[in-house]
């Protein structure tokens, strides 16, 4: 881990502790003695060098970066996790790095980065009822493929952006890495500034004569609910094209789909459909404690619990099999997450499908993959 590299580099001081945060999110709560010891080392390191540390249960680091207003328009952020690209929703140039690069930043405050070429993704129209940002992201992943944007930046443009709430943009930017992109960046607009409150940053925008490697147009109004088939996020097909796929676990959470709006969209479908089908395990892992508290306050949490939902500690949860519920052999899971690699949730004998919170809820209600529009009048 980064602390080992820091030590090996001969690090004795941290360059600027105020610009670093550590999050205990991947093993929350620690599922093994070894991971508990890693947490202890991180706590000691944070205390020793005066670095802010987000404790077990506070949530996924990416969500906390966004919630606490640390990702600003025009800023540069790197995270030792590939889903750091999420902050592109706030016009931050953000990308994932490994532990050694992170340690180098601890020591020197510096990183080297190559300026990537760009792909412009123009969004037009407005998402129809029952179709969500996740569907747009899966459609884009299908179009580009798992390495279609490798070493390039996705620049989102077009009037369609105005109709997307900030949480929608977070879900789309989050999936940029599943197309290999170094970053997926949205322009800053009124919604960005409304979300940030007083913080403004220095918004970055494309030069008028910018050159793009490729131009892609996505007509939001023509999209339909999508599901990514096992075992790659770019294997999207229309939900309507799936043939009676029985589902035994439904996962609502992660840095893609674990925010308040996501749970509201899922609950709306579940209520309209009359709850969770027998034999389906509904697992809820809010992206942060702030999300969990909001769901508790507005009654969403109580309703999900009444439907039989299992509530896990805010954090990365079951997404990458590092902690939390693990699906059994032969089980089909439908999840709001970003990755469905074989074994991703801790069991290579399970199959993971990716979809929007509403489509996941529709599957939970029906016991098989279903189109959420059937339940939304």
């Amino acid at each position: 881990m980064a602390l080992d590299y820091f030590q090996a580099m001969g690090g004795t001081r941290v360059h600027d502790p105020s610009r670093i945060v550590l999050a205990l999110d991947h093993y929350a709560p620690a599922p093994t003695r070894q991971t508990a010891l890693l947490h202890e080392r991180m706590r000691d390191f944070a205390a020793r060098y005066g670095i802010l540390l987000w404790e077990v249960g506070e949530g996924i680091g990416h969500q906390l970066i966004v919630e606490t207003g640390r990702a600003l328009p025009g800023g540069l952020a790197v995270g030792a996790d590939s889903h750091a690209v999420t902050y592109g929703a706030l016009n931050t140039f953000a990308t994932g790095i490994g532990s050694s690069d992170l340690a180098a930043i601890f020591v020197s405050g510096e990183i080297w980065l190559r300026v990537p070429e760009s792909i412009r993704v123009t969004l037009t129209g407005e998402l129809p009822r029952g179709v969500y940002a996740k569907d747009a992201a899966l459609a884009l992943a299908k179009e580009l493929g798992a390495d279609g944007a490798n070493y390039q930046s996705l620049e989102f443009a077009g009037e369609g952006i105005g109709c997307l709430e900030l949480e929608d943009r977070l879900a789309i930017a989050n999936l940029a890495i599943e197309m290999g992109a170094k970053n997926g960046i949205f322009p800053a607009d009124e919604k960005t500034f409304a979300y940030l409150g007083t913080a403004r940053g220095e918004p970055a925008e494309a030069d008028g004569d910018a050159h793009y490697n490729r131009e892609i147009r996505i007509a939001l109004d023509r999209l339909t609910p999508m599901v990514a088939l096992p075992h790659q996020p770019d294997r999207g097909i229309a939900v309507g094209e799936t043939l009676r796929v029985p589902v035994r676990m439904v996962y609502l959470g992660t840095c893609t789909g674990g925010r308040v709006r996501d749970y509201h969209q899922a609950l709306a479908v579940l209520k309209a459909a009359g709850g969770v089908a027998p034999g389906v395990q509904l697992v809820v892992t809010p992206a942060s404690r702030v999300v969990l508290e909001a769901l508790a306050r507005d009654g969403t949490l109580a309703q999900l619990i009444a439907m039989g939902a299992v509530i896990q500690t805010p954090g990365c949860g079951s997404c990458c099999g590092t902690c939390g519920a693990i699906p059994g052999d032969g089980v089909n899971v439908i999840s709001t997450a970003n990755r469905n690699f074989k074994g991703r949730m801790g069991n290579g004998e399970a199959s993971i499908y990716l979809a929007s919170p509403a489509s996941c809820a529709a599957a939970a209600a029906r016991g098989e993959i279903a189109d959420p529009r059937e339940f939304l009048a």
Partner: protein
Amino acid sequence: VIYRARVILGKPRDDINTDYVVASRRKRDSLDPLVLRQYLFEEIAPEFAASVEPGDVIVAGRNFGCGSAMEVAVTAVLGAGIHAVLARSFSRTYYRNAVNNGLRPVNCDTARIREGDRLRIEEGVMNETTCERIAAQPLPEVMHRIIEAGGLVAYFRRYGGFGGA
């Protein structure tokens, strides 16, 4: 030095993600490369870990190391005595992590490399089995310096930061 080609899944496969190199769940018990090496490619090629020998090199298709940026997907490979990965292309995080740890990422056309081929890796790749010379994309200057130093730790110990060289 002659290396032995290990073509994951028989022919160079695209999109081998880092979870396939080492499953995230294995990190619950250890981050030690010598422990994690026994789980290399367990989801997609479970026979690989038992048969790997020092001096093997991994051969894959496009987008090797996509997905998570976890660095154990590099250190576990090194832990098995593997010094290079040959692929048609790499994800950017795997490429960086490899260089930072002194694992040589060789960006080249791998289509005609077969399991067990004997390879010499210099500026390009010489397949001694088929007598084919394969051109490789050179590393960017900064990465070349890092890998020449033996990785980012060695580089920082020598120069104290990125500025030194």
